[in-house]
């Protein structure tokens, strides 16, 4: 693993084995006074390298907030977020942008692709922004894996919803990020397109050693993960290893979703 020295505050101790991402005593409060909402309420969690973790929880449980904060898209009120050994709270806006570009990948629920760029251009966008060349072999591997090779020259409006999401997943992996964040990636897909995307994400973890953190509502999607973390009221309330859809559904019912 290589860390650009500019990003690493000198006082951070680098342990031998460190989680891909972790939140420590994370508190996020939106608004102030009577209308203040505690989206994250002193939450601590780790996401292991090379694992596929799903975050689940009822609406308003803080799962999206957690993902946004982990990804450096939003800042905590108090507490710490580490991406690898880097504490995000110490970073400037510019450093955060660089971190997202070079060390994280994203798949959102919708509107994942820039409409003016072709699928291929979308896939290499983070590297183009960094002014870096993509590793052609790896790019080839990723594109092959998501199965959009014949659609590379097309604009997003000419792709199906499933193809768009797979192109977004390819983009997320193309720069070999340390971690990929997926926010309801299957939310807008029909079940077969969703299954294809999830299969690819599983492969990315198993075959390529990718780390993925995915927020989802869908127990079937969550069951593809190695581990499911359950949130309620801004805290981790439970977790499940080797989950099945039925077990997740059962747990979610108890959480009152």
């Amino acid at each position, binding site marked *: 693993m290589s860390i650009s020295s500019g990003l690493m505050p000198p006082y951070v101790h680098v342990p031998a084995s460190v989680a891909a991402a972790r939140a420590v005593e994370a508190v996020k409060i939106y608004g102030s006074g009577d209308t203040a909402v505690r989206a994250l309420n002193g939450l601590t969690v780790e996401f292991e390298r090379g694992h596929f973790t799903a975050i689940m929880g009822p609406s308003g449980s803080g799962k999206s907030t957690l993902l946004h904060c982990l990804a450096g898209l939003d800042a905590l009120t108090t507490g710490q977020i580490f991406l690898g050994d880097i504490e995000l709270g110490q970073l400037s806006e510019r450093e955060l942008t660089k971190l997202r570009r070079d060390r994280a990948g994203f798949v959102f629920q919708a509107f994942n692709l820039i409409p*003016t760029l072709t699928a291929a251009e979308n896939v290499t966008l983070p590297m183009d922004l960094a002014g870096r060349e993509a590793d052609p072999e790896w790019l080839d591997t990723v594109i092959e894996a998501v199965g959009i090779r014949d659609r590379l020259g097309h604009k997003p409006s000419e792709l199906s919803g499933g193809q768009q999401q797979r192109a977004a997943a390819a983009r997320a992996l193309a720069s070999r990020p340390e971690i990929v964040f997926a926010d309801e990636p299957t939310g807008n897909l029909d079940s077969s397109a969703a299954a294809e995307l999830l299969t690819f994400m599983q492969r990315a973890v198993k075959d390529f050693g990718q780390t993925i953190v995915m927020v989802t509502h869908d127990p079937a999607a969550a069951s593809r993960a190695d581990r499911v973390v359950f949130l309620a009221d801004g805290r981790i309330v439970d977790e499940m290893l080797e989950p099945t859809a039925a077990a997740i559904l059962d747990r979610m019912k108890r959480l009152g979703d």
Partner: protein
Amino acid sequence: MWRATLKGLLAHRWRLLRTALAVALGVGFVAGTYILTDTMRQKIDDIIAEGSEGQDVVVRAETKFASVATVGAETPVYEGLLPEIREVEGVADARGSVFGTAVMIDERGDPIRPMGPPTLGGNWDPTQFELAAGEPPVGLTDVVVDDVTAERYEFVVGDDIQIVFPSSSEAFRISGIVKMPPSYMGATMALFELPVAQRLLGFSGSFNSIAVRAAPGISDVVLRDRVAAVLPEGYEAVTISAATAEVEEQMGRIMGFIETALLAFAAVALFVGAFIIFNTFSILVAQRTREIGLLRAVGATRTQVTLSVLTEAVVVGLLASLVGLALGMIFAQGMIALLGAFGTEFSGTALQFRPRTAVVAMLAGLLVTVVSAVAPARRATHVPPVVAIGGHFQLPGRSLHRRLIVGGLVTAFGVGSLLVGLFADIPNALSVVGVGALATFIGAGMLSALIARPLAAVVGGPFTRVSEPAHLGRQNAMRSPRRTASTAAALMIGVGLVGFVTIAAASVKASATSAIEDSVRADYILQGGSAAMTTGGVSADVSGRLREEPSVGVVSSVKTGQFGLDDAATTLTAIDPLTLPEVLDVGAGDLAALGALTDEGVLVRDRVAEDHGWKVGDTVEMVFQKTGAQRLPIEGLYELSGFSGDFLISLSAYERNFVPGFDAQVYVLRAPEASAADLEAAVNRAVEPYPTVTVQDKAEYIKSQTSQIDGLLAFMQALLGLSILIALLGIANTLGLSIIERTRELGLLRAVGMSRGQLRSMVRWEAVIIGVMGTLLGLAIGVFFGWALVRALQEEGVTEFTVPLGQLALYVVIAAVAAILAAWLPARRASKLDILSAIVTE
């Protein structure tokens, strides 16, 4: 419905104001023009009223033809009439007055010559003027100067001063300082004892006019008739109100010309504003489809939707009009300050804000805005209610096919009208040309949507390799060809006209240069400096002094004057047919014509003779102010352009028919045996008492001729600059609206690692591509317009078609830089977007 509309308006008040600004600048131009010209008119009326105080009837030589009044050009009134007029019953007093040109020389030897206002010389009249210091002028060497000039140049009573007249240059002693009436607008004034003024200004034994004051109880009309009864043939008595009305009418015509010229530029600015309004409302309607769908779903009719959009246009138009009126005041104030800085004083007259100004400005603002919003408003009615509940709907753009046909037809009509107006002999050619240009711009604007995508791709092509933001900026410029095209088209108009005047000016300059290069043989050309006729030319004395110099071989003077032809004031040039061919290479045909010219006849320019159906041997009736109608035989036709007017007479004929005046130019040729240094010394000796005269060799003469064109070009560019500014506002507006539309996309870009700087860069690249596109389209049209004009003016001596590529390339660079500035705020706003709110909208 109304409440929804109004709430929407309030919610978008800043955007409304920004949109309104695009029209407000044009409205401000219109209002400012009216305020400025009204104020100037008021000032002129004040001057005339002040100048006519204490007069009831004026006696003058009969006006032979309608002409713009020029100081010193009036026919003299014999001074022997004065005692007779004083005898008339009912006359309280009668005084003769003399006025002409007198240029004072400052201590450094430079002429005191404000730009525009006249340099007056006249007779001291205690009933008309009041001394601030010193004594009235008595005798041959006394002069009284005005207090404003005295203060500015630190003249005091007792100082010596050199003053230049049409025929002489003399030294005087300042005997007094006269209080300058403020209405004289920055003119300079030197006053002498009456007989001295008569001699100096060429009115020996005569006056410009005689002012008569009535005894109590005698009306102007009665007095006029009584005075008229004693006047000999050739003189007339007019009441002061009739006399001032004439001058007011003449000045009104000049002001009307200035007003029309400025309004033409204002119309261009409004036209550009219309493009922006159209574009803005089109984008707004497109962005609001969901809102409009909701209104339709809850029961709003199509008419109500249209009215809702038009209401917004009315509000924008009203806002634009009000802001425009305020801008107009500032514009007029600024112009008056600018004129003051160049020597024309308007202070002392309040800014004239007439109801007409408000009405026209309001109408202009409202009409431009509402008419431009009609098409977008109608398109809004196509939104079906279903979009309110998430149905997908794309506003139907008119098919590109139809656009091609309509745009092509409009362009063809425009180009056709332009060419017909320029080349065919038709009445109202100028309006036809104007309509043609307008249609060409609209047509090109429509067609530009068709080529916007490939053009943006080509323009942005070289940049895509620069950086990813440049690539994305180019893609954004290409994604909505209509929007890009109409934003660029607004810029195209201003740049097209700037390109046109630049090419026209370059062509005229090149033509003038080659004409002078080819024809002028003289070693030196003497001119009176300022081109304004009131500040004179070369005193006639100079040519006499030159002839006495042995190293001077040939001296040839050229004068210009006005005469009446079919009741219209027409310009002629007087030359010496013997010496002119020695200093000018006129060509074989013209040489023969000049050889045929006697002191009794006239030469007419060939194509003018053709228009009138005149042949050599026919006679032309020319009405001279001094001698009345004269029938002159046409002794030849000439071809050469470059003389004022289309009629040539001999200098002897001029002396017979005109009061003495300055030489417009004096050409000097070296004597064969003399050296260049001798000639230079001789010429400098001859003009030594006349600092008003500029001595130029051929190269300097070319430069002075072309620099006048440069001045005019700079003035037109400044006036067109406003249209370009409005177009840049349009770019800012479009980008701002696009950014709102692309919020999610911008958020995504930021999320996947685009830095704020890169985002700003992306917006700026889009602006640069739009700006360069508009500039290239504009320059293409400008080159065509320029070519058409040069072809049309071929007979006027514009023989060269010159495209100053370097200057046009500079315009492209300036446009790119200006576009970056226009994108400044939108780019900043885009980069400040909160990433999360951008991603999680809805």
